[in-house]
């Protein structure tokens, strides 16, 4: 399953870091951050609870970029 989220991030490098952090989160099959449109698209592994996974994604992203926001 794939879902799109609106995000807020200031710099392009931070967006890249967020993408990396999201990709490494458990339950995420693939993730891509689009700095230009301020969107994150996340592909979940099967049988994962979207809400819990997204909380973890947000937590991991906050670790690499404190200022970022994901509108879950």
């Amino acid at each position, binding site marked *: 399953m794939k879902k799109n989220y609106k995000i807020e991030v*200031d710099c392009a490098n931070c967006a890249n870091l967020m993408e990396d952090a999201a990709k490494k989160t458990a339950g995420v099959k693939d993730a891509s951050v689009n700095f230009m449109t301020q969107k994150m698209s996340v592909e979940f592994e099967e049988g994962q609870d979207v809400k819990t996974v997204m909380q973890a994604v947000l937590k991991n992203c906050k670790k690499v970029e*404190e200022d970022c926001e994901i509108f879950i």
Partner: protein
Amino acid sequence: MNKKQKKLLTRILIATALMILLAFIPVEGIVRFACYLVPYVVIGHDIIKKALHGIKNGKMFDENFLMTVATVGAIIIALLGKGDYVDAVAVMLFYQVGELFQSYAVGKSRKNISELMDIRPDYANIEVDGKLEKVDPDEIEVGSIIVVQPGEKIPIDGTIIEGVSSLNTSALTGESIPKDVKAGEEVISGCINLTGVIKIETTKEFGESTVSKVLELVENASSRKSKSEDFISKFAKVYTPLVCYAALALAILPPLVKMIFLGQSADWMTWIYRALTFLVISCPCALVVSIPLSFFAGIGGASREGILIKGSNYLETLSKTKYVVFDKTGTLTQGVFEVNDVHHNEMEKEKLLEYAALAESASSHPISKSLQRAYGKELDRSRVHDIQEISGNGIIAKVDNDTVAAGNDKLMKRLNIEYNNCHSVGTIIHMAINGIYAGHIVIADVVKPQSKDAIRRLKRTGVVKTVMLTGDAKKVAEQVGRDLGLDEVYSELLPADKVTQVERLLEQKPAKGKLAFVGDGINDAPVLSRADIGIAMGTMGSDAAIEAADIVLMDDDPSKIAKAIAISRKCLRIVYENITFAIAIKLICLLLGAVGIANMWYAIFADVGVTVLAVLNAIRALFVKKI
């Protein structure tokens, strides 16, 4: 400016005011340190906090870390009496000015481009008890009647049931001439209604309508990252830690060497200051932000011209196109039949066409439609009697009091009428009136007016080979190929043969060149995905073809292919300019910093100035009107 930027601006102003004030107050020693600490904290507290946060999470070498180490280092040097606190505060201050400027410039250009591409309709009008009501287009069901007033966007695809108007389709096709529409015609969403009120019966849901599809496509475009973007993000990952270690080495090694091997004084402060300058220069931001921004601007500019590109990677591949392979019908030709000529006629051309159109008036075949169009006047069907359709031959009918036979050579043979064979290419309709041969009409699929120019322009942009693949007859295909100046023509192909041909061409092409396939039909979908780049015709094309394609031409104009290639080249040129320019300036400044020529001020320019220049250069990719 957004809230964050405004806050930063206030902090910059306060810190600047404090610095000016402090310049007039002569204080020394620890008091001076305390005084300058105030503007430093005002301007830099978030950077230090972020740096600490980064260290805590094991993510050390980011720009916040670099700036913190650089400025704290400068303060310590000043405390030891070798420099001034002004340096430290100024570096932080200018860094923040740069950040603000950069975030403003990037945000602004991002917004500009997004606005250009924003064709999303906000509402749809429905009539309730004689009054218009605005509703969310998402709620409109298929088959509903919506009203579009002048100046409004058509929100959902449908058929006009009432009203006459002209539409501005430029947001979708890049075409600036308005299109006239009337009842019975299909219209696509995203067009702007210019003159009259029209009522539309919707044929699709909002989510399935053209405008939603186009938006989805463009918005997802920059998610497919190009090789250059991948290169830059990988580069940034290696580069930042590398520079940090280099700075550390610069701070420690030369003094040690001087002290131990040359017996001179270590001169620690000078080298630490140089190492800090080194750190400031090294931020990778200019590269990281300007590359995706260039692609984004390129895709945005192209979409304004009616060329939808589904990803930056395709923009990159497109710029290397060497072979262009075309489908014929609907791509190079209009895909509609038209009367081309009338030959060997004994009577007036109009009269012959009138007879032909009347005789064929009962048929709904494209050929009979083309005859009716060529005749151009209203047909009086009561003049036609006794229509006999002879399958595979043609039609015999009584028009007024004459017996008209219209059909192919088989029909003429069957009726024992002598006929002239035609040398023209296309479908030939022989006509006999009262058993006497009266000439023939040539009907053919018409070549698009822009096709010839399209091929010529492709050649000029450096495409080595143009090929046409078609399922059509050899004679027709070769005629079209000659007319347009195509290099190779392969005819009478089945859909599977097209794939084989494309695969053969893929093997044959030069290793670095790419092959683009341009098509429109359902049977093109496999070939579109097999080619390096698939280009589909948007309005003629089937959904399957558009789905499988990487680039969609919204107005079906084949000369847009050369334009798309030109746009991609311009965009890639800007990307390479930015990569080389940013890396070169940084390297030069790093070198100058290492030998002590460049100070903190140079360093700030190398970081912020280069970023701003690169961003401005990236925006150029948006302007594609003239190429």
